[in-house]
């Protein structure tokens, strides 16, 4: 029977070419727009480190002064896990988690050794030793530095693969010297391509939320001793001395910790509360609240997905709804026009159920055609987005999951659109239709 319904549907499409084209086109446009925006939204709200995000946590404390009236939740939303140097170092040295790293971003000036080449700026990360292991950064050559190097303020550096390609033609550069901000650093490792999206560790530190990975990684204490400026400094009290950010009342480093499981996280939160309570009793801190979201919770708190991307998705689904209503109308028009044909089929013995099935098959075919067209439109839309100036633009692609989602949306949309017309078709009374002929 199914084959017969397909044949009937194709005949009806041939009979009403303009109407069918309109339906497929409208549905295709709606689906294309929805899939494009959905793909972008999925990309923007994705998990940057799928293997380890559940184990990564961002300790948040409130370093503001006595007379601050800012609620901690508001502060954490604005500042994330930003804290002062003193608190970050205390928590780092307590080593209460499996792994922990303190970090800040900086712009590094790189001076190529070859004569005649201009110095240039690259995105740099100042971090402590566990950064690479915690954040799944794999090495092409060499490895990271040790906690000992951190404390000794060793002049060692890890560079990204793309910088290694640029400076050393992609060869193993471990042991080579690079000149960073007019200081010599010895390369100990070269990363493989590493650019988690969103750049979860970067947003509170004044970096961009999406896009290329960082180029240079330096031990935090060494870089700080060499007066590299952090990219984001939030000061909250007077007596700020920009030359001594380690003692200034300014939050400019962030801490990430790795904890095995929920029990561990609970224990760490207790540890954090105790630490803050102790600092409050010492008079260094004034607000006892702490927070310990995991990576995905942290991204949700930071509202990292741009408003425009979410608005566009809402808009696209509104548009899809209009397209579906439109399809309902056109399908209905089409099937009521065929009342006579339905009457004849019913008179010849077709049941209501089979009429219903026939029209649902027809809608499903419109849906599949709309889905295929929608995919074409989505690829076009994503191509257009890749030409856009947004920092996430180059990442916009359709993955296999979205490919499947497209057809699910197309089928569901068209079947919903087909329900009403098919129902109207199957309640057509055969007798009057035959009589009027």
């Amino acid at each position, binding site marked *: 029977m199914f084959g017969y319904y397909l044949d009937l549907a194709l005949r009806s499409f041939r009979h009403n070419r303009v109407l069918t084209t*309109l339906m497929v086109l409208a549905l295709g446009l709606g689906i294309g727009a929805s899939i494009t925006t959905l793909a972008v939204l999925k990309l923007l709200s994705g998990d940057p480190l799928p293997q380890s995000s559940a184990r990564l946590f961002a300790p948040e404390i409130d370093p503001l002064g006595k007379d601050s009236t800012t609620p901690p939740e508001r502060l954490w939303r604005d500042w994330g896990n930003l804290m002062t140097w003193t608190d970050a170092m205390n928590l780092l040295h307590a080593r209460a988690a499996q792994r922990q790293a303190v970090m800040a971003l900086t712009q590094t000036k790189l001076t190529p050794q070859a004569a005649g080449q201009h110095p240039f700026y690259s995105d740099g990360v100042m971090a402590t030793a566990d950064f690479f292991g915690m954040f799944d950064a794999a090495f092409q050559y060499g490895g990271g530095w040790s906690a000992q190097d951190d404390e000794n303020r060793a002049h060692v550096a890890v560079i990204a693969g793309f910088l290694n390609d640029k400076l050393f033609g992609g060869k193993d550069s471990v042991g080579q010297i690079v000149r960073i901000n007019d200081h010599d650093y010895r390369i100990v490792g070269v990363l493989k391509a590493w650019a988690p999206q969103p750049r979860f560790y970067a947003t509170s530190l004044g970096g961009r939320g999406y896009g290329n990975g960082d180029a240079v990684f330096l031990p935090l204490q060494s870089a700080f001793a060499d007066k590299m400026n952090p990219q984001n400094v939030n000061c909250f009290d007077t007596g700020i001395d920009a030359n001594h950010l380690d003692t200034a009342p300014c939050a400019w480093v962030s801490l990430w910790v790795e904890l095995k499981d929920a029990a561990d996280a609970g224990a760490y939160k207790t540890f954090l509360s105790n630490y803050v309570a102790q600092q409050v009793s010492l008079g260094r801190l004034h607000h006892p609240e702490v927070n310990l979201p995991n990576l995905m919770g942290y991204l949700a708190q930071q509202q990292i997905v741009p*408003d425009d991307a979410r608005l566009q998705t809402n808009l696209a689904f509104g548009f899809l709804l209009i397209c579906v209503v439109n399809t309902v109308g056109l399908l209905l*028009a089409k099937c009521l026009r065929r009342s006579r044909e339905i009457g004849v089929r019913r008179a010849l013995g077709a049941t209501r159920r089979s009429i219903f099935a026939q029209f649902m098959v027809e809608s499903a075919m419109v849906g599949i055609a709309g889905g295929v067209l929608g995919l074409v439109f989505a690829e076009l839309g994503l191509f257009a987005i890749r030409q856009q100036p947004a920092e996430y633009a180059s990442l916009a692609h359709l993955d296999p999951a979205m490919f499947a989602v497209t057809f699910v949306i197309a089928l569901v949309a068209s079947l919903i659109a087909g329900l009403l017309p098919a129902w109207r078709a199957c309640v057509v009374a055969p007798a009057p239709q035959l009589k009027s002929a």
Partner: protein
Amino acid sequence: MQIQPILAALRKHKIPAFLIVLEIALACAVLCNAVFMIGQRIGEMRVPNAIDEAGIGYISVRGTDPNLANADIPRDLDALRQIPGVTASAAFNMIPLGGSGWNTDVGTSPENLLSKDSPNVAQYMFTQQGPEALNLRLLQGRSFSGEEYAASTLGDDFMPTAHVVLVTRSLAERLWPGESALGKRIWIGKQTNYTVVGVVADVLRPNQNGLGAAGFHWSLFLPVSPNKGMGAYLVRSAPQDRERVLRAAVQKIESLSPAAVVKGRLFSDIRDKFFANTRSMVWMLVLVCVVMLAVTAFGIVGLTSFWVGQRRRQIGIRRAVGATRGHILQYFQTENFLLSSAGVAIGMILAFGINLYLMQHYQMTRMPWVYLPASAIALWLLGQLAVLAPALRAANVPPVVATRSV
């Protein structure tokens, strides 16, 4: 035109009529909000900025030794001012719409500094000739004197030791509503305050800093002598000279400080880059609106054609008993008008609801009511346009159809 027969006919076609109403309602709701968002964004891009946008080139200089800044900057400025066509040049810490910048909370007294409504403002600093390089428009008071520049250095807390400040009109209005700002004090930090000596026309800040459009004009200007932290130069020239002047300026600075990383940009490019995302969002919204209206129009054409086809006999009968073509045309137009009106009425309520939802979940302001009637009119027109072709086809149904049996 009588409405009763139309309503009676519509009652026989409840579902198609309902679908048209629904489609128009949805289109109206989306259109209202999309057009409102387009308007908001275009407004954002057109916010006034009282500087000489057409004549400014911006040269950022990074990677120099900060301890030599007080020698390097006067030398560089001398060289820049010798470039033919340069009318003014000064060292700056940042530029309007530059993206990143120095922001600071200010108060009108040390006490209200930490209160929740102490505004966050952009802190511009420049050396002598700074106001001329930007072409600041002085509305009240005076600009800085040579001594005020010379006496001001940048401390370790990155606050100038000056005692005077220029503020934008919007900031003055925000801090001292309804009063003259001249002679008043602005506190930055509990120990540091500056006396307002002049009010200038509104200048944009480097970024909105999460404040939205409201705080986009909250800027203040402080004088400093050549100092570390002043990482850029502004050169102003006649608009037709700006490209040549900028190229010459970059070359000069590169040759004077070979170790520095020098980058020159025209202000017009800085503006384009700042609003690039906004612009692409506007185009995306426009595209969606156009396609949506087209889909709606085709939906109306499809459904109306269908029921014109269904009513050929009735139309024939009406024509046979004396209705003119005009009557038939009018009939379908009126019918469409009624359906559109119902759709628009529901659509406006829906649009209002969507706006409320967006206000809750996004940085969105209340939609001015004019958007509602405006998109209602747009959809009425669209409906009339869409119904025209099927209605004309209906008007062309010959009366003889009534007498035929089929």
